[in-house]
């Protein structure tokens, strides 16, 4: 079946603009995760959804970052008033309902802030 799909694959925007990143998880996967990958910080957890609820949003770096998930499926990560330090690859992953399962990753959105 189809894997995790992320869009856009690349996004270039000016500092101060808002951006939305989209993730379509594998069908039937109830858990969804967002991570950020940058040269300086490596791979960092941002937020985790179980269904439409976010039990753990501890990794969101500031209140400029928010995420939602609707219908237990698609998720959107929104960054407001982007800063240059937001430049990174944003990765989405999903896993089946049972806990402690491997996560399936999309190819990410490469975000560049000019």
């Amino acid at each position, binding site marked *: 079946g189809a894997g995790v799909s992320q869009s856009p694959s690349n996004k270039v925007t000016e500092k101060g603009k808002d951006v939305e990143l989209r993730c379509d998880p594998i069908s039937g996967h109830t858990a969804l*995760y967002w991570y950020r990958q940058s040269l300086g910080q490596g791979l960092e957890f941002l937020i985790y959804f179980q269904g439409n609820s976010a039990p753990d949003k501890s*990794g969101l770096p500031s209140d400029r970052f928010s995420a939602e998930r609707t219908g237990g499926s698609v998720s959107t990560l929104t960054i407001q008033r982007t800063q240059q330090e937001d430049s990174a690859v944003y990765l989405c992953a999903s896993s089946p309902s049972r806990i402690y399962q491997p996560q399936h*990753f999309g190819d990410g959105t490469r975000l560049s802030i000019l």
Partner: protein
Amino acid sequence: SQQGEEDPQALSIQEGENATMNCSYKTSINNLQWYRQNSGRGLVHLILIRSNEREKHSGRLRVTLDTSKKSSSLLITASRAADTASYFCATAPWGGTSYGKLTFGQGTILTVHP
């Protein structure tokens, strides 16, 4: 923040040789996972080892886990040029609302020369 430290940071070998990568972590875990990432792509799950397991095999992969030393190793036998990638260990915590949250190491860049 990164929980895992991986060693070495980079490894260069010839096809047919074995590759060993090590990972250390700091806190109590439920399981440890290894992922591979090809350049410009998302992460691919390789193997999951639970905290009550000591060794696990999958094809040419062998993973060990020593919870007393808080360390793990990944061995790739008879390496191929196609194994060239970055390899990451990731730990999953026990219980609570964060059980889905993976904490990644910095990764080992493996280059296999034909």
